């Protein structure tokens, strides 16, 4: 039990360090278990410094930086133990264009590497443009949702209707 948790920790930590640098284009981050003798009672801490910054505490990170760091850890947990399905509801909302691009590159690669199917809810045209297929949810009849297959230009149009 303990062995497996510590092995998982090393696995996830390895992925996390690498993914953080990839998503931030530099910087460094790592995980820490507060108690190696009794890991099941320990806290999982994370330290993260975006490139060129000296960070006093995680809380000082910007909204986008926090989301990106969280995505790095999320995908690290994922790579340590892949799932058949990963659903992300508007995780790109706080990200600027450059970070959206890096995020989508990453999940595209993971999808190919692990065979995981991603379901990505988004308002971001850049994210939409990288999806392999798009489904629009509409309420042509007010209060009643409908699901319909859409092309990219239709998807971008959908954002402007209400």
């Amino acid at each position, binding site marked *: 039990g303990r062995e*497996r*948790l510590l*092995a*998982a920790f090393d696995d*996830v930590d390895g992925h996390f360090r690498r993914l953080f640098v990839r998503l931030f284009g530099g910087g460094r981050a790592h995980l820490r278990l507060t108690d190696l003798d009794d*890991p*099941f009672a*320990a*806290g*999982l801490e994370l330290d993260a410094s975006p490139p060129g910054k000296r960070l006093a505490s995680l809380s000082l*990170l910007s909204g986008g930086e*926090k989301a990106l*760091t*969280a*995505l790095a*850890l*999320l995908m690290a*947990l*994922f790579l*340590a*133990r892949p*799932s*058949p*399905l*990963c*659903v992300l*509801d*508007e*995780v790109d909302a706080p990200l600027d264009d450059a970070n959206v691009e890096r995020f*989508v590159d990453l*999940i*595209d690669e993971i*999808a190919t590497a692990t*065979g995981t*199917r*991603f*379901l*990505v*809810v988004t*308002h971001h045209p850049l994210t939409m443009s*990288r*999806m*392999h297929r*798009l*489904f*629009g*949810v*509409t*309420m042509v*009849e*007010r*209060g*009643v*949702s409908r*699901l319909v297959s859409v092309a990219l230009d239709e*998807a971008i149009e*959908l*954002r402007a*209707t*209400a």
Partner: protein
Amino acid sequence: MSGFKSFGDPAELLIEQGLTGIVGPNGCGKSNLVEALRWVMGESSARGLRGDEMEDVIFNGAAGRAPFDLAEVSLRLRGPVPGPTSLAPTAADEIDVARRLGRGAGSTFLVAGQEARARDVQLLFADAGSGARSAAIVGQGQIGFIVEAKPQERRRLLEDAA
């Protein structure tokens, strides 16, 4: 699914390989779709689905429509499933999971046509790492959780991945 939240009309979504995007204006039902997945995978908290009681997920009518008495979501999984454990105890290549909720009655779960308990369904999906509570479904506004969470809560994510 049919009768789940704003889905007053039956809807079917095929989630294929790679990246599938879900788009649409505010309030049209994208997050409801994500919650339908979490619900059929055994989500037991009404609050976790933005409701006060579980019956809040039953379509309660719209401008031109009467409320429903039944909400129903079913999920068909086709193997082979990535990850260290197969989703089905019989290692079948396909498994159907369904959940029904009628007003005044509790939820009914069906796995491969057999009635099952909520717990069985949760375990079934927890095993493959994509259940209602695992790291693989990130609800709207939830991405910050990883960074804002207490170290003890974060460690539990690691345990799920172990």
